[in-house]
């Protein structure tokens, strides 16, 4: 792992905005929300991809849009960065109406797309310089930023390599660097680590946390609950184009699932026996095929009775976003 403190010497960076709750609730006026959506809707013909969602992304926070494939995450993001016109509702980004001022919004926003949209004919260095021109960044300033950003994403030694010599993780980091060229106030990331190996993923996470420390607001989509838990101050769980839950990950998990989960796997008779043994406790539980999930606050006290059944798999662990997600969105594959 890469260790150590990273210092990104970006001058003229904005102050870290008041992070969350406490600061925002004081008497000081609320800062402009980074994203404000009211009954935001996107339909493609008959199909409703995003169904009247409300979002409030605060300045300075990292906000996660979570959900399985097809939940409407990418569509939401594409509306936020002024790519897709909205069908109905209201959408403001950085205080601007996206449908009427797309160029102004895009000037202050960075997007890390899901797909590789880098220029394969150009080196990483050239990719950044060409992109800077779209923002009217003067050549000298563009070079300064490109060098700084390549350093930030640890690609300095690849700056002049052909693009196809870069790994998937390197390309993703280059996409992040490219999205930062215009010093955006809001960084939108569509599945920033999908398809990356663990090392590459952790490196990306580390960079995103560094950006948050600089006060850059982030909206990211992911279907990795672990990623959301690692990065996001608040999340919205999307499913079928609707928001099922919205809030701080820990609060959501605690409210719906509890503190802990005991997982028990076994045959039909064993699961029945386990439920019988727990009869009388006010435990919430859920069953999915061969596995029983017991949501509890003191799992340790259940373990003696359960291990007496000698199940092939018995696991006591903290409750996670994934539990919450599977509970509210259901466990069946929806395609």
């Amino acid at each position, binding site marked *: 792992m890469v260790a150590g403190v990273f210092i990104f010497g970006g001058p003229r960076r904005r102050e870290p905005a008041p992070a969350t709750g406490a600061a925002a609730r004081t008497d000081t006026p609320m800062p402009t929300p980074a994203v404000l959506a009211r009954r935001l809707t996107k339909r493609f013909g008959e199909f409703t991809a995003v169904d009247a969602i409300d979002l409030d992304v605060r300045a300075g926070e990292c906000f996660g849009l979570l959900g399985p494939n097809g939940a409407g995450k990418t569509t939401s993001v594409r509306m936020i960065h002024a*790519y897709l016109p909205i069908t109905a509702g209201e959408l403001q980004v950085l205080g601007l109406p996206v449908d009427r001022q797309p160029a102004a919004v895009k000037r202050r926003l960075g997007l890390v797309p899901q*797909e*590789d949209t880098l220029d394969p*004919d150009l080196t990483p260095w050239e990719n950044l310089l060409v992109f800077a*021109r779209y923002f009217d960044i003067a050549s000298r300033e563009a070079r300064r930023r490109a060098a700084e950003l390549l350093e930030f994403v640890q690609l300095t030694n690849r700056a002049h390599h052909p693009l196809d010599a870069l790994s998937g993780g390197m390309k993703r980091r280059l996409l992040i660097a490219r999205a930062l060229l215009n010093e955006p106030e809001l960084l939108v990331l569509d599945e920033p680590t999908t398809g990356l190996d663990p090392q590459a993923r952790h490196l990306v996470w580390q960079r995103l946390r560094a950006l948050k420390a600089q006060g850059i607001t982030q909206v990211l989509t992911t279907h990795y609950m672990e990623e959301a838990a690692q990065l996001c101050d608040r999340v919205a769980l999307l499913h079928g184009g609707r928001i099922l839950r919205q809030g701080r990950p820990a609060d959501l998990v605690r409210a719906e699932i509890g503190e802990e989960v005991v997982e028990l796997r076994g045959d039909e008779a064993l699961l029945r026996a386990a439920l019988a043994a727990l009869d009388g406790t006010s435990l919430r539980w859920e069953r999915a095929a061969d596995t029983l999930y017991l949501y509890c606050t003191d799992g340790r006290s259940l373990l003696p009775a359960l291990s007496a059944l000698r199940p092939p798999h018995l696991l006591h662990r903290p409750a996670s976003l994934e539990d919450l997600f599977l509970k509210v969105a259901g466990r069946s594959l929806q395609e």
Partner: protein
Amino acid sequence: MRARGVVVVWPTWRAVRVWQRNLTVFRKFSLPSLVGPSIGEPLLYLLGLGFGLGTVVGAVGGMRYVEFVAPGMVMSSAMFAAAYECTYGAYVRMAHQRTYEAILTTPLSLEDVVAGEVLWGASKGMFNGSVMLTAVTLFGLSRSPWALGIPVIIALVALLFAGLSLVVAALARSFEFFNYYLTLVVTPMFLFCGVFYPLDSLPPWARTVAWYLPLTHAVAAARALMQGQPGLHVLVPLLGLLPPILVAYLLAARLIRRRLIH
């Protein structure tokens, strides 16, 4: 409910950024391709057909055959260069490399991208056409200083075929699609627009068809200028190229919007 999705039809000066991007890539890779197919081929036609066939054909309309063919070679080289760039080149950028999508995350609009692509394709056409014009002049095939006006005609042809080809690229689902376009639209222009023979030699109905093909007027006007006989009857029809240029751009923008932004 308020009206949504105001369609911005007109590009801004930012279209130049797209042109610059293409130039950056082109400068890096494509200089060798200049001497190859795009300029070499029309030059070979000119030499092979003009001088070779010319010995058999003799004079046409008071010109040596090679003089007769020269203006058509200039125009068709502009046409082919613009057409190739805005079919294969644009399609790779749009569908394979997702370049347009990347650019659309910046302050540029889709109209800027489309206009930039048309300008780029047209620039390649103008470049090739101008190189051919220079070659023709050096061969002594152009008799008149009026030929200095020919670059304007080259620009019209290049803009038109860049826009038209971008429309085709917007509709294409694969490279094979371009074979139809190049074989059924572009090549017939080359063969039936008076490049190789006077249109008078065609039957009346074919002459009528040729009159509606844009390259016909460009070739006729270029020939008149090279011969030092500019007349309104050959120059005015060139104005007819302007509406199709505009329509092709608008159609390309509309189709590419439909393709990329569902």
